[in-house]
């Protein structure tokens, strides 16, 4: 049988303990072990950003971190930040501006955008574009996403 490790971490405010294979990615762990399917898998090589989650307050690629590395960490996902209302302003502006079409990139995009909102009180459109330039969106062409973030950060867009 495959070697396993015991891990304990806090996910969306709730402590969880599991026995996992050392090779399991954090995003696979969240999706398959915890049923948190909001974090999506788009490339599994750290490029597309669809699996972006927050670990100890920093956004990371869930496909580039192993579940065992999250032992003892605090992990926040799209589900948790939706329920805590932390994302409410961005979700509202994304909705009103149609800053999502198929919605597959959206959880990762919101996690990345919220990171900017948490760090900055103002940002230029160029800074917004640069901040989300690690997140693929194949549907929108990005402008509506930039507008939506711009609105939350700067009250316009």
């Amino acid at each position, binding site marked *: 049988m495959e070697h396993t490790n015991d891990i304990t971490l806090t996910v969306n405010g709730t402590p969880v303990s599991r026995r996992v294979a050392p*090779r399991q990615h954090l995003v696979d762990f969240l999706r398959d072990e915890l049923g948190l399917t909001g974090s999506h898998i788009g490339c599994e*090589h750290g490029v597309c950003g669809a699996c972006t989650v927050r670990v100890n307050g920093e956004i990371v690629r869930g496909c580039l971190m192993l579940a065992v590395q999250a032992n003892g960490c605090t992990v926040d996902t799209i*589900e948790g930040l939706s329920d805590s209302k932390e994302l409410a302003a961005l979700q509202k502006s994304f909705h009103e501006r149609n800053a999502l079409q*198929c919605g597959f990139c959206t*959880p990762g995009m919101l996690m990345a955008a919220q990171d900017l909102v948490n760090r900055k009180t103002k940002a230029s459109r160029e800074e917004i574009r640069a901040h989300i330039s690690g997140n*693929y969106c194949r549907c929108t*062409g990005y402008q509506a996403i930039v507008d939506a973030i711009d609105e939350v950060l700067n009250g316009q867009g």
Partner: protein
Amino acid sequence: MGKAELPLHAPGTQVDKGYIGQSVPRPNLQRLLQGRGAFIDDLRFPRLAHVAFFRSPYAHARIKKLDFEKARKANGVIGVFGGRAVAEYCTPWVAVLAHLKGIKSPPQHAIAIERACWQGEAVAAVVAESRTQAEDAVGLIEAEWEELPVVVDMEESLKNTKTIHPELGDNICFKREFDTGGVEEAFAQADVVVEDTFHFGRHTGVCLEGRAILADYNAGEHSLTVYHATQAPHMMQDIFSRHLGIPEANVRVITKDVGGSFGIKVHVYADEMATAALSVMLRRPVKFLADRLESFLSDIHAREHRVKVRLAVSKTGEILAFDLDDLTAIGPYSVYPRTSGIEGNQVVNLTGGPYRHQKYRAKMHVVFTNKNVCCQYRAVGHPIAVALTEGIVDLAAQKLGMDPAQFRKINLIADDAYPYTFPSGIKFEQLSHHKALDLLLKTMQYPKLREEQSRLRQKGIYRGIGLAAMIEVTNPSPAFYGVGGARISAQDGATARLEPSGMVTVMCSVTEQGQGTEAVFAQIAASAVGVSIDKVRVITGDTGVTPYGGGTWASRGAGIGGEAVLQAGRALRANMLEVAAAILKMEKAELDIEKNSVVSLLTREKKIDLAELGRVAYFRPDTLPLEFQSELTVTRHYTPRQYGFTFTNGIQASLVEVDPDTGFVKLLKHWCVEDSGTVINPMLVDEQIRGGVVQGIGAALFEECLYGPDGQLLNGNMADYLVPMSGEMPDIVCAHIETPTRQSQLGAKGVGEAGTAGAPGAVMNAVNDALAPFNTRVTAMPFTPERILKALKKV
């Protein structure tokens, strides 16, 4: 230009058009914003098995031996299967269409038997309790191969020195020649003849959610339920039924959330057919997700074309004739069931489309190669036809010393010339090229930009402005596929049902992959019935629930599905008025519905709310006259038939800055004026255009599937295959002309492919305009810094 007048209510009543023309936010977005969507990989099933495929490492090789012994013994493995085992359960297919005369392709199996014809073709399947275990076991399959000659280059394929499928005789899948006559004479008489060769890079859709399917066979009832990320559930129902030998009514295809499609998810994929067959073989649910590396190797590619084009022009700038020679390569198989002949066919149909010349000659070859298969991807053929038309038109204008906008003004088909038959035979109902050009030039402040451009050139800053006029196929009739024998529906249906609470449920055969289809249907249904939009629920993507229809492709969802919803909504409203008349003991003609209530037609006084109407109709019909039966579920269908296609038109412009030292292109701004008929939701229309433009920009500047001489894909991952990212994209300005089609009462034409159709041509012309002072030009997409520096002779 006024909005389309829509008689959504009884003639003579003074009621507004409801939600048509309003930028209503999509009602179904909250779940996606909260990560609570239902993509295939989010679904959980008991006894779910996972399949991983062993794929050919060679572009062309005979399978001498496949040894599954070690793989079968691996942890968690349920079964390992080769092509012959799966073929017992799934018959092969041949992708041809009767109206593409002479098209040929060999039979294709769900899993290759004896021979692999491209790198990435699946030759064995491992089913295991988890995907991880399945992939581990794939690594234990032992194979012996005999490498076969590889055909990679399409010019070489055309010469037929090595034949990929000897039984077909040559490498030509399909060819077409077209000639109006008089072309040679027109060229002989021309004052100016320009000629160029354009190359279009093979690229792919890169849906962020890979292809996904979960097939669940129930041996107890010989039924198959397939959860499938597809654009065309009914087409797939038919295909699973015929190739797996399960009665059509026992096959149900359910399409929940789909993470991008763009034409990629409207085709039959061998590995997906194998997944369905494996579910039947193993009598349990089986799931396949194409991972990113598999996606690059096996999602359809598109657009690999080499086109020579010549243009004959008079000294006054009048286009006299087009002469075209297109060559395109489509991999080793024509893709089922739409075939891989359509893109080349569209290039022949559409080239020169916006202009009023009468002489046209075209020659087109579609050839087989040992690369991944190609088929229809967003805007099919249009990006090629538009770019080569607009590229050669700009070259002619340059040679005549004429402004490109002025050159187009001289040649665009007049707005009062319709109905109009283009030399290639296609018919236009009503287009608005001149209105669109005028609006574009005004919106972008064209003269000011030209002034700025020439001022900056003196400072060594090289900006370029590129225009691209276009025509686009939308709302196709059965002329697209049905006439060729494909079981692909051009009609769609909608059911509208009044719920007892006064809400309205709409079920439509057109599917949603993020375009906003369900929102648009809610707007139409709410307007047609007379209820507020929060009272409408829309269900799509379930062959067990919705009426029969074609689904989503060729910019048809709003125009065809929307008309079916409009007709169903109106019929439901009429039936609701019958019930109200029976309850109120009034004449139906005295009543109307607005704002969730039945009102007096004349006084607008509220008579009964819809919840009360529903209560009586469903729970107390005993209080209604004995002979009266309410019918509060109605279904209507719609097929466009008067024209083969409801053509639309538009024009785009790109403003770029080229750095002659680095070869980098900076996109400064992009404009698009589009006439998509009645605009149902302006925000969604603009967002379709913007997303489409950015995919077109990807083709122009970044995207290409690069193959080595041995047929190996060199950049099949997201790090090496570049797509547009937010940092490089410009803001895109959209404006509209509204010329409703008279074929439907809704008047909507399609818009989903417009951006992708025009953007590559506009960007190409802008880059070449910027390079003009250096007397050089680029014609091979994507325009990478290296290609631009080569054109500048700097590398």
